[in-house]
């Protein structure tokens, strides 16, 4: 009998993960083809439709959807680098959106400032960063001081944020002039992000700048070194004199702040008011983005574009072929699962082992 066994590679191959990603996408597409065929569609036609929509006819929408994904992908990247399992990007995005909308809707009545985007955009950004950071800070404090499992707290905070946001747009902040439709009033024009073409707005540029900033922090600064050290070996980090509490709190402020910006860019660049559709899963997709990008900030940009394309393509399937839009989500999940499974080949090599001597058992 011959069997296979994994052997650890002494040197990791540098670009093998690109191969893994491509392979995973192909396998996920094959799996998706089965689903599409089951739903009565020709998979080739469906995929062609998706690709055409995502990267040709609706490429602008792809950029629009990639914007929040870059932010949430960065949010997760920062936290996961330190092995802090922040699953709460969704909730942090929502409170970031709430803060941005709140600032745009109510602040102009309270303070008199020039009605210029140059003034108001930074104010909203600050508000959403602070809100996202604060929302992430509570689980961080619970983790740092009491050791409470952050997966649970960050997740539950998603639900709490989402229900609160529902309460606001259906009740407290509901526009009386909205003819009964749930949703807040529109934000003033000087609080909107300028648009380039279609719905593509300045948010994508801010997202790319954020990615560069995160890259610099992570790989060029002392702070990034401390994050790295904690992520690899918290005991060694403490031994090196690193203050763990301070870092947990810092990383969550950074992570929450990034997710908060995603909420800001959705409010200020896309919807212009608080309404249904802010919490559509960008926070969770951010986890996929970050992991597929191997927690590399520049990789996040590329993967966000790819996954945004899948979302746009999924919507197209629903509109033109009456297929469930969830195909896009399923494909995302499948790609992640395949990447997780195939990742072993970048760390291990597969070796065919033959048993030492062919012997029969003693008796």
């Amino acid at each position, binding site marked *: 009998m011959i069997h296979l066994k994994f052997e650890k590679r002494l040197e990791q191959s540098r670009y093998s993960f690109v191969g893994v990603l491509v392979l995973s996408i192909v396998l996920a597409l094959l799996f998706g083809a089965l689903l599409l065929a089951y739903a009565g569609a020709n998979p080739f036609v469906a995929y062609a439709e998706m690709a055409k929509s995502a990267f040709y006819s609706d490429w602008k929408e792809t950029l629009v959807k990639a914007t929040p994904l870059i932010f949430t992908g960065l949010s997760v990247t920062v936290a996961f680098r330190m092995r802090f399992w922040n699953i709460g990007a969704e909730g942090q995005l929502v409170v970031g959106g709430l803060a941005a909308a709140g600032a745009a809707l109510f602040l102009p009545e309270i303070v008199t400032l020039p009605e210029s985007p140059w003034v108001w955009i930074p104010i909203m950004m600050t508000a959403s960063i602070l809100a996202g950071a604060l929302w992430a800070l509570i689980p961080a404090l619970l983790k740092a001081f009491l050791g409470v499992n952050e997966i649970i707290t960050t997740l539950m905070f998603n639900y709490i944020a989402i229900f609160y946001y529902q309460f606001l747009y259906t009740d407290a902040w509901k526009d009386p002039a909205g003819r009964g439709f749930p949703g807040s009033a529109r934000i003033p024009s000087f609080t909107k992000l300028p648009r380039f073409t279609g719905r593509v707005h300045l948010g994508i540029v801010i997202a790319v700048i954020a990615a560069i900033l995160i890259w610099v922090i992570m790989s060029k600064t002392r702070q990034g070194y401390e994050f790295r050290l904690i992520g*690899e070996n918290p005991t060694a980090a403490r*031994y090196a004199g690193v203050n763990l509490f301070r870092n947990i709190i810092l990383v969550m402020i950074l992570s929450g702040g990034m997710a908060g910006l995603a909420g800001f860019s959705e409010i200020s660049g896309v919807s212009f008011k608080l309404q249904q559709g802010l919490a559509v899963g960008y926070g969770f997709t951010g986890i996929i983005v970050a992991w597929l990008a191997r927690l590399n900030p520049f990789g996040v940009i590329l993967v966000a574009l790819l996954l945004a394309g899948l979302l746009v393509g999924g919507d197209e399937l629903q509109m033109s072929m009456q297929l469930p839009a969830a195909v896009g989500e399923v494909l995302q999940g499948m790609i992640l699962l395949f990447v997780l499974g195939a990742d072993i080949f970048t760390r291990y090599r597969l070796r065919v082992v033959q048993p*030492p001597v062919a012997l029969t058992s003693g008796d």
Partner: protein
Amino acid sequence: MPDTSAPIAVEMRGITKRFPGVLANHKVDFAVRVGEIHALLGENGAGKSTLMSVLCGLYQQDEGKILLAQKRELSPVQIHSPSDAFDLGIGMIHQHFKLIPTQTVAENMILGLKDTPFNLQMTAIENRIRDLADRYRLEVDPRAYIWQLSVGERQRVEILKVLYRGANILILDEPTAVLTPQEADELGAVMRNMASEGKALIFISHKLDEIMAFADRVTVLRSGENVATVEVSNSSKTELAQLMVGRPVLFTIEKPPSQLGDVVVAMEKVSALNDKGLPALDNVSLEIRSGEIVGIAGVAGNGQRELAEVVTGLRPTTTGRITIRNRDMTHQPPYQFIQQGVAHVPGDRLGMGLAGNLPVSDNMIMKSYNREPISSGIFLRNQMIRTFAQNLVKAFQVLTPNLETPARNLSGGNQQKAILAREITAGKNLTKGDEPPFLVTVYPTRGLDVGAIETVRRELLEQRAQGVAILLISEQLDELLALSDRIAVLHGGEIMGIVDAAEADIEHLGLMMAGELHI
């Protein structure tokens, strides 16, 4: 006397085992007779543990075969897993006990046993354990939880466990490493008792005295190969040592007289808790002077780790005072200790001393990343990091393919050299050379080969000559005697006495380690 014509109990022929990048065993032949205590001697890394792991099914050999006496005849067997080994009557008593702390002695005893009934009848099992314990004189309470037991008791459980499974071939992996000299003697008697009951015992060790005292025959492994199998009665310590190392060995190391300076570190009645929240250090008072090595002797688990963590700021103290060069450091964070030039070579290299997956360069700057010239403001200076790491690697002869290699991939000796390089340099840099730094080393030579051990020991003496105050925690009395100026013995978190190394008596140290003597 053992019967030299007794039948073979188990034989290994031409065993070869490879790990990525390492040839751990190469064509090893090895045989044990019924009723014999057969020692397996070799340095760390000589392949002793690997060979025995093959025999007890933890590893699969790449080549070679195993023959076992079955119905008075040697026949080849396949051992794919530890449970195969148990079925064949082979049991291993591991150096790191294979016991589950949250379960009872009895539960541990039946773990993995196939003939235990599905519905557990603990009373019957407990009675059987008591019988067995009486027969082999291995006292233990079957209902006690493992975490409640002392190290010596845990070892008894380990031995009982193997006997409970009806093993005829017992492998003991460095069983005396965790025992006091007196306890080790008792173990010798238990082993002799088992051999006379017809068991075959394999006794892994690198301590020559024990082998001369307990074993009938000895097989010496070197670099994964069998160099010789000899009768102990026809051999000598010197011959065995030479076989083990491959060259004549000096049993002593030159130690110049000490040049004592001012007190660098002083602990006054310090107490602390362990990770479980139980008292681990009890009113420890100790002073270490510049140019002095103070050794800490004791059986593992008597507060050594906690002591090292307390004097480096990693573990909070409950009472007492710690001063470094007369500066009160009690309740200061680790960072402040580092700033005072406290360097620390921890016992657990990959657990604490290194971030295994990070490159060597990142590991080299662990104690200096937040200072000029490694960083400037909030930014790291990559060119400086490279130069700094390169210099350390060169000065301490750390063998690494390059600076980007993950630290995990270095050999144990090179990992240790890398840590030493970093710590010694950091200590010097932080005190700017005008004040003596303080170096804490925990089990600094554990798991290293002879060459690396010599390098490390020489380096410690060199630091001593330069006026560094050194706290040396070791489980090897010969190492403590060779390097220390004074030796303090820890038992149950208490210092049982501090003696001058030059006048120390092993018998006395042993009694203090066992808590029988307090001076």
